[in-house]
Every structure is written in structure tokens, then in C-alpha cells.
């Protein structure tokens, strides 16, 4: 049995998405910028895809910009808001310490250009509150950028409340919704979101395509210069097959949110309950405000890469925030942000489910994980020190 439990990394494309893409590789192959009928036919379908995206986000079609994925959308949203701020001499940006690197590294770049970046502390449960945002907003704040749901520990932020605070204070609000889109109901107008990034391959769409929602009237700065595609804000011939696949996958995912949430959450809760039984383990991220498919644990006394390799050999594909999986010596910045010490941050495991997982697969994971954790602990000097009282447990 091979269980794919790494759906936060990427998902298998749905049949709906694949089917939607195929005609655009052979029959409808035109360039939407061409004036002839072949090009214009492609343009019609492009417009249709934009409409589908807009309908499912609660915005207007012209407020959608197609990008190469979530990272590009994050980059463009932040750089645009920073440029708007600079024109009004506002150069203070609020974010959090546990954003995706697409956000954090863009902010770092802006910091070197003279912007002041304030990263809000994340609570131990992986939450940031609207009050924190409210307290941090200043006269010269030009942007608040806070992720909708965390990609590692799965905690879901109070986006509507944060949006309301930003609206009240007149500050632009961007959210990286890469992990949330297609999984949680989003309405950008009701939630007072000014800009939102999403990526198709996280909801069973194709890779290499994403979208940026940007509220009417917000001036975008180009990241890619060239032709006049996407209202002149994102050059390059549109990737029509991928865009069609994304729109189909997004409409499909959004129409099944309730059904999928119920199914996936049940499996998630079984995993959380089962893995909580492993001694000296702890669940990361809020239990209630949590992505339906996210399970994230730290196991004391072991290291995550070894855990992943052994799990893979037992047919479980998962992910870890250990240093050894990142190529650096520092464990995940997310686990550091919620205050997990290095000792246990190295021993983390993320299992991320989709509606394609089954109860049998959950049984398999629940058999394999405790066994593999025990196997690694049995060869760990840290575990021996803990057991024999020479070292104190971090997780009781």
C-alpha cells in the first residue's frame, strides 16, 4: 500500500481538471492576443475561466490576474502595495513570522530597500489575532499581509476580522490563500480582502498556474514586463490549458467544500487522536481553527528526515520541517515562530490529506507511524537520555 499524505505539497490533478485542459492543447490553441478567429476563440475561453475564478471568490472578473503560481502572486501583491505606499511616504508593512518564504523573502528584499517590516508574533497555537494587527497598524502602514492558513501546521487565521480591522484603518490587506483556496469558502468582498494569492496545484489543478485577486482601483506593479496581457500587469502569452484546468478544478473544489471538509476532517481527527497516543508527542497548530486535511506533530527524541525516509519505505509519503529536509541546519521557521525548541522541532511530521485518501489509508498510517517512531527512538541517544532521566522531556 502506498499512501500519499502530502497534499499540502501538491495534489493529484482531478479528472475534471485534466479533461478541461485537453482541448486547449490541440483544438483551441490560439493566442488570445491574436485578432483572427482562432485567437479570439481562445480569448473567449480565457474570459470564461476568469469569470469562473471570480464567481468562486466573490469578485469581478477584471479583478483576477493569472500568474505562474502562488509565489508570483505573493511577490506581485506585496511589491505593488509597497510601491503604492512609497508614493504616500508610507513604508511600514505588517506581516507574521510564519508566512511562506514567497512572502518573507519578498519582505526581506523590501527591508533592504528601506521599508520597515514588522512581523507579528504567532501564538503557541499557531494563531495571530485581529487585535494584534490593530495594535500594530500605524499612520505609515501601507500593507498588512497575513496568510489565510499556514502551510505547515494548518492553523486558519481570523481573516474576516483582520480584513475588517484593515478596512477600518484604511490599510491594504493581502492574504496568501494558497493552502485555503478550494478548501475553505472565500468571499473577498465580505471578508474585506484587498488582494489574495492562490495556486492551482493545491486543489487538484495543474502546476505552474495561479491567480492574484486584486481589488478594483489598486494599482499593480509589474513583475514581468512585456506584452499587454492581463491588463498590461502581467506580460507573457496566457497559459490557456493550465488556466482552463485551474478554473475547472477551482469550480469543482469550491462546489464540494462542505462534502470534502466533512470527509477529510473525519480522517484528520482519527489521525490526530491516534497519533496523540504516541508518548511524548504534541500536535502543532490550533485544534479548532485548522485546515480539514492537516495533521502536524512533533515527536521527541527523533529527527524528521529519518522519519520520512522510513515512512516512505513503509508506503507513507509525508513531509517534515526538520533541518535535514530543508538543506540548512535550522528547523522550520514556522515551528520556531510558535516557540517549539530546536530539540523537538527537528522531529516534526506533517501529514496532509485530501478527499482522495481513504479510511484504510488512515489505518495504515496509524499502524506505521508509531512503529517507525519507536524504531528511531530505540537508536537515539537523546531518547535514552530522556528515558534515563539525564535529559528533561520538552513534551510531557
Amino acid at each position, binding site marked *: 500500500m502506498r499512501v500519499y499524505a502530502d497534499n499540502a505539497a501538491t495534489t493529484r490533478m482531478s479528472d475534471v481538471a485534466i479533461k478541461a485542459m485537453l482541448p486547449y492543447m490541440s483544438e483551441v490553441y490560439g493566442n488570445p492576443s491574436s485578432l483572427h478567429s482562432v485567437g479570439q476563440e481562445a480569448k473567449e475561453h480565457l474570459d470564461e475561466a476568469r469569470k469562473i475564478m471570480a464567481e468562486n471568490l466573490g469578485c469581478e472578473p477584471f479583478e483576477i490576474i493569472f500568474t505562474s503560481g502562488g509565489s508570483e502572486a505573493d511577490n506581485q501583491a506585496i511589491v505593488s502595495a509597497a510601491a503604492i505606499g512609497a508614493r504616500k511616504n508610507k513604508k511600514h508593512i505588517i506581516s507574521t513570522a510564519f508566512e511562506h518564504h514567497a512572502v518573507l523573502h519578498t519582505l526581506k528584499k523590501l527591508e533592504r530597500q528601506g521599508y520597515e517590516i514588522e512581523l507579528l508574533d504567532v501564538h503557541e497555537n499557531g494563531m495571530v489575532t485581529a487585535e494584534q494587527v490593530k495594535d500594530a497598524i500605524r499612520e505609515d502602514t501601507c500593507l498588512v499581509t497575513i496568510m489565510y492558513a499556514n502551510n505547515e501546521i494548518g492553523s486558519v487565521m481570523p481573516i474576516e476580522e483582520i480584513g475588517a480591522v484593515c478596512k477600518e484603518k484604511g490599510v491594504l490587506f493581502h492574504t496568501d490563500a494558497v493552502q485555503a483556496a478550494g478548501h475553505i469558502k472565500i468571499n473577498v468582498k465580505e471578508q474585506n480582502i484587498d488582494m489574495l494569492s492562490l495556486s492551482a496545484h493545491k486543489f487538484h489543478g495543474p502546476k505552474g498556474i495561479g491567480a492574484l485577486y486584486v481589488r478594483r482601483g489598486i494599482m499593480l506593479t509589474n513583475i514581468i514586463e512585456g506584452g499587454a496581457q492581463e491588463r498590461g500587469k502581467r506580460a507573457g502569452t496566457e497559459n490557456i490549458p493550465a488556466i482552463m484546468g485551474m478554473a475547472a478544478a477551482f469550480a469543482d473544489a469550491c462546489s464540494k467544500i462542505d462534502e470534502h471538509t466533512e470527509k477529510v476532517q473525519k480522517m484528520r481527527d482519527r489521525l490526530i487522536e491516534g497519533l496523540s497516543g504516541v508518548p511524548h508527542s504534541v500536535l502543532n497548530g490550533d485544534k479548532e481553527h485548522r485546515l480539514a486535511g492537516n495533521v502536524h506533530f512533533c515527536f521527541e*527524541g*527523533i*529527527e524528521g*528526515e*529519518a522519519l520520512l*525516509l*522510513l515512512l516512505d*519505505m513503509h508506503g507513507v509519503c509525508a513531509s517534515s520541517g*526538520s*533541518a*535535514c529536509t530543508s*538543506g*540548512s*541546519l535550522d*528547523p522550520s521557521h514556522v515551528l520556531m515562530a510558535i516557540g517549539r525548541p*530546536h*530539540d523537538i522541532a*527537528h522531529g516534526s511530521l506533517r501529514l496532509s490529506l485530501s478527499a482522495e485518501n481513504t479510511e484504510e489509508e488512515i489505518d495504515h498510517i496509524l499502524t506505521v507511524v508509531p512503529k517507525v517512531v519507536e524504531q528511531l527512538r*530505540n*537508536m*537515539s*541517544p*537523546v*531518547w*535514552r537520555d530522556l528515558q534515563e532521566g539525564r535529559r528533561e522531556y520538552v513534551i510531557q
Partner: protein
Amino acid sequence: MLYSKTVMDHFTNPRNVGCIENADGVGEVGNVKCGDIMKIYLVIEDNIIKDVKFETFGCGSAIAASSISTEMIMGKTVEEALALSNKEVVEALGGLPAPKIHCSVLAEEAIKAAIKDYYDKNGIEYDKALFPDCANCDHCDHH
């Protein structure tokens, strides 16, 4: 990250895992902060390594490097064990990815630390410069 067949073999079937009560020499290197700790236990008789066991907290290559290096020093003289270099460990493993070379360094240092402990316990004179000084080294903090 791709590991060689030898690394995967030693990682999944590690040789000489465990601890030895009243070992003649025990060496522990690394720290939890950087995610690797290696501990080597030695039984030494007539200057020969009669038995060796290891415990490792770390990634797949750290476990494999510890496992193969215990095989490489089993039955050897103390001097031969001291001469084991991390390069030989890497070669024996059929190579390691660049970010994992430090795992082989840890294996070399853990063995040296265990021999140093043996020397200290038995009042044997040695050149201190030959041994790692983990207490005064910040290698793990500077990657």
C-alpha cells in the same frame, strides 16, 4: 535528496546499534540544536577494539555513517581506529550529498571522542591536538 544504495542499506538495517554498559570508552558529539547527536561505545582489550556500538539521533545519512564506521573499526587497533577519516567513511558509503558530508565528520569525531575517553580513563598520554574539542567548537552554529 538521493542516497546511495549503501547509505539506504545502513540506514534501514543499521549494524551495531545499542549501548554498552561499562564501556571502556564512550564518545558523544553533535547537539540537538543542529539536529545530529552521535554516541559511540567501545570495548577495548589489548589495544584492540573488541566491540563497538552506536546510538544516533539524526537524519538517514547520520545513522548510516555511524553504522558503517562501527563496521570499519571493529577488530582494529586503537591507532587504526583513530586514523579513520571522514573521507573514508564517505567513500565506504558510496558518497554522500554535499549538505550531508558533516554526518561523516560526526562519525569520525564520535570515534575519536570515545578513544579519548578511553585514554583519559586509563591514564594514557596522548596528543590533545588529535581530538575534536566539541565543548569549544561552534561548528554546528555556523552552517
